[in-house]
């Protein structure tokens, strides 16, 4: 039975990774799960310098999910290279580094710094809805997305995944723009912009007013977008958005995702990633599936 999948020449022992920002660099969850069992760990977004993030409250619960507006707090690429990469290298899992920036130059600085680091892939965050500059500004305009993808591809030594925003009119157009500019893969969806109001205090719950919605409630939207994006391009798709079980993961794969990521569900159950890995194998056994790749895009 084969659970391995391949994206841009990189082989993952299974199709399960973590959604950026929900798993740190694995350190915090290493106490609960065996990181060696994951196909890959996708790190929290890292910028060229440390970012303080947004004021609090940064998180709140909503029906069936949550809103966050962390604002990409991170220690900057130097600390990341000194601390997080050596930590991750101790494990038998692939490393996908999520990269963020306010300007094209800032993204390029991170990508360049990672050229000779032992990381397997880069995921470019052009879809964070919680920072005022950069990020989503590159992910909501096909021309801007194409431009930044091209520039990153010129500098990157590792295969490049462009992480797309669901906050667009036609996801297929964004997927095509990334592919046309040379992206090796796309991942989606990032969070859906939302808002919550405290009606007793007549105030926004989040200090940032808006936040990105994640959790099981967004799954049908994510499955639909993964389906549309994967049918618009020939490059592999990494699917995410509300995955909390192996059944959810398989649904994304059948919609067209070669790989899947577990996000907010890590907060709901710290063991979710492992349960998804094990559950996929059980599903394959139960349904006589020899190779997981058989189900990718099978609907």
């Amino acid at each position, binding site marked *: 039975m084969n659970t391995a999948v391949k994206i841009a020449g990189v082989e993952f022992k299974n199709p399960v990774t973590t959604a950026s920002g929900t798993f740190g660099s694995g350190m915090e969850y290493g106490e609960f799960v065996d990181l060696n069992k994951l196909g890959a760990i996708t790190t929290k977004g890292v910028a060229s310098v440390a970012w303080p993030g947004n004021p609090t409250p940064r998180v709140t619960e909503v029906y*069936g999910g949550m809103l966050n507006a962390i604002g990409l707090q991170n220690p900057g690429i130097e600390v990341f290279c000194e601390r997080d990469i050596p930590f991750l290298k101790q494990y038998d899992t692939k490393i996908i580094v999520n990269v963020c920036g306010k300007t094209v130059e800032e993204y390029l600085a991170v990508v360049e710094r990672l050229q000779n680091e032992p990381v397997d892939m880069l995921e470019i965050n052009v879809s964070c809805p919680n920072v005022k500059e950069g990020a989503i500004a590159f992910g909501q305009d096909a021309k801007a997305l194409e431009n930044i993808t091209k520039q990153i591809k010129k500098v990157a030594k590792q295969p490049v995944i462009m992480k797309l925003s669901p906050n667009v009119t036609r996801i297929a157009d964004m997927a095509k723009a990334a592919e046309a500019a040379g992206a090796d893969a796309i991942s989606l969806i990032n969070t859906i912009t939302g808002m919550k109001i405290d009606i007793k205090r007549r105030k926004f719950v989040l200090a940032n007013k808006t936040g990105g919605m994640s959790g099981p409630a967004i799954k049908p939207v994510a499955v639909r977008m993964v389906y549309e994006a994967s049918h618009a391009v020939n490059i592999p798709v990494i699917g995410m958005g509300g995955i909390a079980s192996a059944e959810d993961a398989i649904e994304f794969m059948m919609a067209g995702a070669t790989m899947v990521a577990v996000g907010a569900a890590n*907060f709901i159950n710290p063991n979710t990633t492992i349960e998804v890995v094990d559950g996929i194998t059980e599903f394959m056994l139960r349904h006589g599936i020899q190779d997981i790749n058989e189900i990718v895009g099978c609907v």
Partner: protein
Amino acid sequence: MKICKTGIVESVSMLSPMIYDLAVTTNLKDYAVPGQFVMIYPKDKSTLLPRPISICEITETGLRFVFRIAGKGTAEFSGYKAGDSIKLMGPLGNGYDINLLKGKKVLTLGGGIGVPPMLELTKALKSQNIDVTAVLGYRDSSLFLKDDFDKYNDTVVATEDGSIGTKGNVMDAIAANNLKADVICACGPMPMLRAIKAYAEKENITAFISLEERMACGVGACLGCVAKTTKEDHHSHVNNARVCTEGPIFDSKEVDI
């Protein structure tokens, strides 16, 4: 060590309106220290995130939590029955370092729903023969946990309406009773913690305060629950410490509140 495990409810009772006492059999107790908290997972799947609840007491068999109903999650907890199983993760956060308090005169200050975590601390300090006085602030005469504190020390009480003890808050009770301390340990609403920070600076004493912030993961991964710090934090190096991991107990001098 942090563990994620099922515990069994021993008892649930109402201590005062909206304030509930939940005792759970769990081996998380073996790793817990005063000042830490535990994530309790609601069963209702519309409330997805676990609720961070401070440890009120570490018992022979498990942990005791005293919480206020603040929403759907805590409302669910208040309805549990003995024998129910519940999922817990913890113990979380730094907790108090009792060694820093040895040989000191300590005041443990609890305001409102900040009272419960002061119980285990007061108990632990007393067991180490540390000179401790608990000062508890309540809204009105519906006190809770006072009898438990009385087992360990001469408890001082303040009520906002003046119905019991000093009229006012814990700071008013400190002044009225002329209480002195080398170290203050406190948990309560932000205005109280700000007053304690100012008082500690004026008196040139140390105050350890327990901060609260909205959390998602509880283990330091999501960076949702940060507090502004005066020193560079070791995680992100941006003067934003994680309340769930570097906290919830901070030296008041080290946080900008």
